């Protein structure tokens, strides 16, 4: 009898201790604010795997925006809290959405940075009939599926392409002494929905609206390309003035490094997005060799905060200060996440409800001009849940001595572009 009793005690003691520990750990310190409780939303980002480097920056941006939101009264009178989920690939993304809805009971999910993840995640969310709030992801097909409760705060690949071509045709071409239809353009892109979406939209606009001459188009698989020599040789043969390139990460670094080795001479390289050429890793890897490369991003150094509305200025300054303190520098990932989450707060303030119908009405009723809040954005959503390109102001940044600085539009920045057109490699500073 005694032995059995001892065995039972031993059997139950471990789970009991664990339960007590969990109980103690779940007690949270009471916040200083007067909240009527907490409102939980789901956050879905790639925190492990090949996209983790950017997913983590998004999460940081969300956390900082959340702090600021809670300082200003939270959402719907409640403190905003997160249920964070990791989505390293599309399958995990869909599974995590299911888990967030069924086990964490969230009604709104925010995410997910990557064009390869947002489709799967938003479809899963739509099946549960909850709200899916995307803050990044540029696949153009995302907004074309007729899903009523799926939204996106950032412009899509079409928007990226629109700005890339706008910059090249209206600002860069005159500076190079050519008219847009005299420019020879080559396109080089990684082959995911992000690269393809942006490149195809850019090709279309370049040809149809500005009659730019397309000399070469090439897609490659970012993760498995170990050598760009064949592409470089083709480009040398084609002799473009402008190279519009979309990279994913490591491929951009390898390409530009080999471009120097094989002496590829172009007048400018224009890219878009915070991955590839616009990633801080690009500058860190290549140092001075990165100088002169353009990337379309959220506003960086040189951004004239005074060009924003007074409210926008306050938000922008507060956000930047906190991000710099925590992460050392403000990256595109932070800015997209922060602005996206802040926009969610604006919607919830108006709707005062997470009922999908009321939420949707609030979303469609918003109409703020450029310069209203973070990143100099405005807001106006279209029927398909996409925030309009003209309101989501984007900026062209250029690598200058290890930093990506804002050079366009000129009215928003103090910096100007340098070194255009590119001199021969051995003469570059």
């Amino acid at each position, binding site marked *: 009898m005694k032995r059995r009793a001892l065995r039972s005690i031993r059997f139950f003691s471990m789970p009991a201790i664990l339960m007590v520990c969990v109980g103690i750990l779940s007690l949270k310190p009471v916040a200083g604010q007067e909240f009527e409780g907490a409102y939980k939303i789901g956050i879905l980002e790639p925190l492990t795997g090949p996209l*983790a480097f950017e997913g983590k920056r998004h999460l940081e941006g969300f956390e900082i925006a959340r702090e600021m939101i809670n300082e200003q009264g939270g959402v719907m009178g409640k403190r905003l809290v997160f249920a964070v989920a990791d989505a390293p690939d599309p399958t995990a993304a869909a599974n995590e959405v299911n888990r967030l809805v069924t086990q964490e009971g969230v009604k709104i999910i925010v995410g997910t940075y990557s064009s390869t993840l947002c489709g799967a995640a938003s479809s899963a969310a739509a099946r549960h009939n909850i709200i899916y709030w995307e803050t990044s992801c540029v696949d153009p097909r995302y907004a074309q599926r007729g899903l009523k409760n799926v939204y996106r705060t950032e412009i899509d690949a079409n928007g990226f392409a629109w700005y890339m071509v706008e910059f090249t045709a209206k600002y860069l071409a005159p500076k190079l002494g050519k008219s847009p239809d005299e420019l020879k353009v080559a396109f080089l892109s990684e082959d995911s929905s992000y690269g393809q979406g942006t490149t195809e939209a850019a090709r279309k606009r370049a040809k149809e609206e500005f009659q730019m001459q397309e000399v070469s188009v090439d897609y490659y698989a970012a*993760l498995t390309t170990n050598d760009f020599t064949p592409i470089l040789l083709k480009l040398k043969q084609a002799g473009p003035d402008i190279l519009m390139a979309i990279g994913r990460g490591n491929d951009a670094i*390898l390409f530009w490094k080999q471009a120097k080795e094989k002496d590829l001479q172009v007048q400018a390289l224009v890219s878009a997005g915070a991955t590839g050429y616009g990633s801080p890793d690009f500058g860190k*890897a290549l140092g001075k060799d990165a100088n002169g490369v353009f990337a379309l991003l959220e506003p960086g150094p040189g951004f004239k905060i005074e060009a924003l509305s007074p409210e926008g200025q306050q938000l922008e300054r507060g956000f930047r200060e906190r991000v710099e303190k925590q992460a050392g520098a403000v990256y595109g990932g932070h800015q997209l996440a922060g602005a996206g989450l802040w926009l969610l707060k604006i919607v919830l303030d108006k709707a005062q409800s997470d009922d999908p119908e009321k939420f949707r009405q609030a979303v469609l009723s918003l109409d703020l001009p450029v310069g209203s809040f973070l990143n100099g954005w405005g807001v106006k959503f279209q029927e398909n849940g996409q925030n309009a390109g003209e309101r989501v102001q984007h900026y062209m940044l250029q690598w200058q001595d290890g930093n990506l600085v804002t050079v366009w539009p000129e009215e928003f920045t103090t910096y100007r572009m340098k070194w255009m057109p590119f001199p021969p490699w051995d003469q570059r500073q």
Partner: protein
Amino acid sequence: MDIFFQLLTTSLLLGGIYALMSVGLTLIFGVMRVVNFAHGEFIMLGMYLAFWGFTLYHLDPYVILLFSIPLFLAIGFLLYGMVMRGIIAASHNVQIFTTVGLSIALQNLALVLWTGDFRFVRLDYSKTVFRFWRSYVNLPQLIAFAIAAVLMLTLFALLRWTHFGKVVRATAQDREAAILMGIDPDRIHRLTFAMGITCAGVAGVLVSPLYSVYPTAGLQFVLIAYVVVVLGGLGNMIGALLGSLIVAGVEVMGSFLLGTAWKEVLYFLVFLLVLIFRPAGLLGQRGAETLGA
């Protein structure tokens, strides 16, 4: 014409890189017939070793190479005892599951320890390019190629002409008979596995000046390594070298002529054709492909 020479040079150098990646796998999969899907992760660990040695102690990767050998041998022995010994005699499915698990564990260990940021070994001379035979050649690539060739030839000689090599091949061909001949298969497996892991680590150190270092860096190479090993003929070092050159050549020429999106289609097509007509691989022994099944 310049273009042709450049493509040829690039094919050779890239072939050298692929050969380097495949040496270790030829030993482990080709000779021992043990499936190791964590092969790419050991390459990644070698890259990180070079990165940290360079960043913290300012050591040249080629110096790090020297003490990476005993380090990876030790890792190989340790991992063999912890993970591989139990599955050496098991079916290939078990080996695949176990080594895929090992691969995921190592990738995420690297992610936790060193974050997902891309790291670089920026040597003063990693950008040195010189014109050779009407094409541009990158110095670290050339060194990697040279060392790959030496390594492959050494291992080939070892397996073909030394007693140890004979013992290794015997154990792979028939474990029971080897035991009867007085060979301790466990010892041989441990040694070969450790040697294979060391080759992968060495490969990682050598390519660190060329590619970014990040937790999933191994994925770039592991599938190609498998193709090379099977294409060349399981267990044949010269075959693996030949396989690397063919894969690299098809990739480079195909990318230039058809577009980079086609490269994998092309070398897998070559792979399929070779296997249909020569199931043992290009230089493999007929019937050898059934060993270790």
